[in-house]
């Protein structure tokens, strides 16, 4: 039970930090980052304790840590929320723990803690630097104007991520998911005074939101079908899975399980930036350079993969290692396509962070494709290794940018883009720690054989695809791997090797330990994280270390997955693409000037890649503009303005017209006439009577006499008859 309490506590310190910073410590930078880092450290400690406890449980997959409380009352009783750590969430918790803590520490250095306040800095804009008091004429970096607020936002972000990881049900997972979406909006738009940052924040939020609403529908459908959202009740219950796989949905030919899986997967497509919802992630690089980029690389986008990993039993319901389910086929296709597609774009980017952004999209595609062909363990393994080495690369790129910014401050030429790799070169000697750690990360990303973690996880995916006869997926992924190695080496060569191409690069300098220490820590994992998952049948070194990862994670499934038999072909392919790509990248770029040698070689294809296949423009043209035109012209102006208001106004005019008709045709001629007639008759009678009315008493008496006499006469006549 005590472990369960620890799990409940994991997300809380960052939430507390968020409120503490915003409400109390906002004005004090040192206090704010202390609160933030302390919160991350406490969560880290709690997470590690839980992880250790999980390691100590035999057959952990069957004896998970879980506890729940009632939250939202619905038709069939309460929707309970709770926490659960099983093998899958344990390993995700492990890498989230480390990466989050490293970001927090790194942020202190990145936001120039300890530096003076800038002379012209405004909240909402990146700091411009300050005059150095000791060395007149020199400019030094200045501290971020919204330093404390930054820590509040990433603390809230960490809360969202931890909530997602420890959730035992889809609803709270979704809560964490949305909190992160919101934080990503806040962090991408952190420098909100830059219009590009505002647009990017909006785009990110909107694009992921489209995925989210479909995911919400998937949740709704799942609840409607099963009456629960608890992972264990659905995913570890063969009966429920069987029922879902065999009941038809309202779309012909698709089972309920398939429909729900696809809806949920659309959520992942948004969150993990898969084609066709990939467009937001590269723009998200507008955020404070490495940190939000790192959030969008190692943690938040991993959440999308984590969700489909989590839902894998549902997605694969009815699969039984035979024909892929519809959802799996879709995932394999989208994943593989994205992996290659994004890798090609990455080849033609100049911005150091954008290369990494496209590389992230591509690697996430790898994981989706792996899951699509049923390589559950391999996908999860790649998720872990990727989180470490991509976090390392992003933080490294931030360090590079920061170093070049030093150079920019030195020369004072603010036209030089410190993120453009063609403005760099030769940074190896200026920034040795950044170089060596970046190299490790880059090699891991390329899948450099044996040593790096990326090799083991990528190789496992390729081997699995090959072994199960998914050759199309295998070839596409192998091509993507080749491109990955190529653009990674291109990046390393352009940035660190050769000679500095600009004065700014010449004056770049290494960063403070708050930034470099996290790089070193992460590079350890970028190498070692692979060693826990070496296949047992691998030649020579297989079996030296037990394939712990496979055994541990396999317990998260009802049916323990079997390991793939060793085959030389995928291994050779994976060696060739990794080494070939790296070599090619070095050869092409070792003497590059300020233009890309590929531009000449590829011609118009390069332009196409550079412009990301014009997807932004395409979406603008086929979705955004028509939607606006439709709502503006059709809905608002035509239907609301012309039809409905038109009818209304016509009805009003009609009523007025009717009134006029009544007045002129009926009120006047008929009613008034009748009334007048009555009046006239009365008048006539009056006139007649007036004759009688003379005012003389004797005359009246005469009339009376006449009447009396006439009456008498009448009476007489009657008697006589």
């Amino acid at each position, binding site marked *: 039970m005590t472990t369960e309490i620890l799990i409940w506590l994991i997300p809380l310190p960052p939430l507390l930090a968020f409120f503490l910073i915003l409400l109390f410590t906002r004005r004090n930078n040192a206090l704010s980052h202390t609160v933030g880092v302390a919160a991350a450290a406490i969560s880290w400690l709690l997470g590690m304790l839980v992880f250790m406890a999980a390691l100590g449980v035999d057959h952990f997959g069957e004896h998970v840590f879980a506890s729940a409380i009632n*939250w*939202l*009352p*619905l*038709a069939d009783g309460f929707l309970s929320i709770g926490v659960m750590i099983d093998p899958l969430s344990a390993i995700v918790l492990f890498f989230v723990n480390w990466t989050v803590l490293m970001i927090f520490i790194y942020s202190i250095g990145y936001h120039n803690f300890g530096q003076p306040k800038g002379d012209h800095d405004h*909240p*909402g804009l990146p700091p411009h630097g300050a005059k150095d008091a000791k060395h007149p004429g020199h400019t030094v970096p200045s501290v971020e104007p919204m330093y404390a607020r930054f820590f509040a936002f990433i603390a809230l972000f960490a809360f969202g991520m931890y909530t997602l990881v420890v959730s035992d049900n889809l*609803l709270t997972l*979704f*809560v964490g998911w*949305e*909190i992160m979406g*919101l934080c990503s*909006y806040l962090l991408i*738009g952190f420098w*909100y*005074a830059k219009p590009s940052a*505002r647009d990017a*924040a*909006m785009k990110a*939020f*909107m694009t992921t*939101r*489209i995925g*989210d*609403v*479909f995911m*919400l*529908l998937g949740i*709704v*459908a799942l*609840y*409607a079908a099963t009456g629960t959202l608890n992972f264990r009740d659905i995913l570890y219950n063969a009966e429920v899975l069987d029922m879902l796989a065999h009941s038809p*949905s*309202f779309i012909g030919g698709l089972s309920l399980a398939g429909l729900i899986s696809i809806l949920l997967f659309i959520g992942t497509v948004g969150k993990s930036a898969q084609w066709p919802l990939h467009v937001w992630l590269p723009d998200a690089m507008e955020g404070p350079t490495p940190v939000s980029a790192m959030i969008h690389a190692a943690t938040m986008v991993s959440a999308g993969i984590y969700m489909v990993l989590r839902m894998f039993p549902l997605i694969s319901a009815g699969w039984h290692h035979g024909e892929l389910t519809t959802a799996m086929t879709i995932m394999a296709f989208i994943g593989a396509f994205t992996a290659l597609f994004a890798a090609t774009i990455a080849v033609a980017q100049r911005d150091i962070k954008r290369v990494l952004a496209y590389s992230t999209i591509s690697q996430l595609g790898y994981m989706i494709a792996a899951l699509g062909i049923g390589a559950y363990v391999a996908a999860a393994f790649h998720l872990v290794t990727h989180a470490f080495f991509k976090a390392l690369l992003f933080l490294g790129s931030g360090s590079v940018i920061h170093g070049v910014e030093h150079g920019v401050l030195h020369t004072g030429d603010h036209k030089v883009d410190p993120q453009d790799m063609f403005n760099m070169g030769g940074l190896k000697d200026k920034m040795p720690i950044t170089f060596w750690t970046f190299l490790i990360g880059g090699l891991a990303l390329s899948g450099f054989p044996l040593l790096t973690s990326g090799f083991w996880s990528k190789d496992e995916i390729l081997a699995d695809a090959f072994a199960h006869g998914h050759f199309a997926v295998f070839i596409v992924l192998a091509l993507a791997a080749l491109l990955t190695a190529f653009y990674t080496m291109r990046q390393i060569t352009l940035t660190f090797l050769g000679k500095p191409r600009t004065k700014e690069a010449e004056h770049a300098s290494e960063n403070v330990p708050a930034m470099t220490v996290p790089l070193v820590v992460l590079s350890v994992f970028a190498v070692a994280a692979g060693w826990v998952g070496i296949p047992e049948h691998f030649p020579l070194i297989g079996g030296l270390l037990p394939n712990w990862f496979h055994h541990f994670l396999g317990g998260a499934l009802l049916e323990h997955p079997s390991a793939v038999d060793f085959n030389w072909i995928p291994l050779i392919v994976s060696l060739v693409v990794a080494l070939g790509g790296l070599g090619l990248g070095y050869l092409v770029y070792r003497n590059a000037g300020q233009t890309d040698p590929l531009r000449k070689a590829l011609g118009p294809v390069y332009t196409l890649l550079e412009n990301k296949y014009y997807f932004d423009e395409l979406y603008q043209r086929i979705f955004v503009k028509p*939607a*606006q035109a*439709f*709502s*503006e012209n059709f*809905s*608002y102006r035509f*239907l*609301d303005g012309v039809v*409905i*208001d038109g009818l*209304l106004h016509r009805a*009003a005019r009609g009523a007025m017209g009717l009134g006029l008709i009544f007045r002129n045709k009926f009120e006047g001629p008929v009613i008034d006439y009748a009334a007048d007639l009555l009046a006239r008759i009365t008048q006539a009678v009056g006139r007649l009577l007036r004759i009688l009315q003379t005012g003389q008493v004797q005359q009246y008496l005469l009339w009376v006499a006449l009447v009396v006499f006439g009456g008498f006469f009448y009476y007489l006549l009657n008697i006589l008859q």
Partner: protein
Amino acid sequence: MQIPYLLSAIVLLPILAGAVMLFLPPKNRDLIYRFALGAAFVTFLLTLAVYFGFDAAGPQYQFIEDYAWLPALGISFKLGVDGISAPLVLLTGVVIFTGVIISQRIEDRVREFFAFLFILASGVFGVFVALDMFALFFFYEIAVFPMYLLIAMWGWKQTREYAAMKLTLYLFVGSVIALVGALAMYFASGLNTFDMTLLATANFSPAFQNLWFPFVFFGFAVLGGIFPFHNWSPVGHVAAPTAVSMFHAGVLMKLGAFAALRVGIMLLPIGAQTHMWWIILLTLVNVVYGAFIAMTQTDFKYMIGYSSVSHMGLVAMGFATLDYNGLVGASVQMVSHGVMTALFFAVVGMIYDQAHTREIPKLGGLMKIMPFAGVGFIIGGLVSMGMPGFSGFIAEFPIFMGLWAANYPWIAIISVVSIAVTAAYILRAVGQVFFGELPADLEGHMHDVKPSEKLAIGILCFIMIAIGIYPNVIMPMVQHGVNAVLALLGGA
């Protein structure tokens, strides 16, 4: 513990306060304002007593009071609240209190303004607590009439007469149509009573119900803004002064939805079951269409006005599912949307009072100047987009659940698009107005909002967050009410 005469006090207090106000010296604005604030506060406290005094395990209707009115015709002054109306009573209390708080800047004929506002409040309370159909119509008209004066006299000069006329005509025509249906029920029942608790047991024939249900439902749903009778509402919002907009969107539109439920669905359940499939289509139009139009608006108030059309569509949609979760979600959505739009209009009013423009592109950078209002607006925005952790999610999630369970998955799929569109226009507005660049002509003219206004914003935000994080503050009550409705529908 149930305070005696509580509901009649709630209904009569505002109108009496309004009457007393008319005798205060017209020049003494402070006195009038303080009196209004005091009366609103007391009303608010009374509504709190209703909300927290309601026993979610007790009988369907509580706090019942019954006085003979016109016994010969079977008309009585019968009041009571169920689990659906009790939160709405509190909502009205909240909106009147916060509405008065932020009306400090009214300068023209202050006395009459507040008097009419309070009469309006009495009408609204009356509809929510009336158990007698005649009383319900009576209060309904009381609620509509001051609206006309408030908009026509204190509204935005350019459109106020048109808007006031449009609104009044729509609502009166709607209520007359509903009245025809109501009278049909009265005569057909043979019970010689307008008491709705008795009429609910009248067992009208299916043919009768099928014929009259559309009359009653649409007659009221006009005020709920159902497509294609929605179009008075945004115009009305724009023309109305801030507190009236808050009332209009926050409470008045719920009146329509609530009466459509109480008189339409609860008294003619078979008719409801027959007609719902096409009504749900209309509400789908509401939801999607309203959101798309809101996206194109550059006038802040029009944007919120059309977003209300969209969100009220969700309410009607939830009702139309006739499913447990759908009804629960719709009932919560009434409260959630009421608080949210009241907040939106309050903030927009605060901005307009200083900037004298509501054009979104002409505003900017207000986060630095009025951070509290900005954060409040963003919280309202998150509610509007159905973010988990806020009341909007607690409302919308069950509605979609209900749609799915009632076998309308396509409707659910199409209407979730509106949630994405909602995010688009809210974020666009937030991005421009609060984070964009402060236009030069506003420099130096804008100031932070007053502490009392912060209080109003704080109360509204608190409710939305409280429901979002701890739905149990409202759910048992609403479920209690919905169970009774479902019993009438013949379901479990």
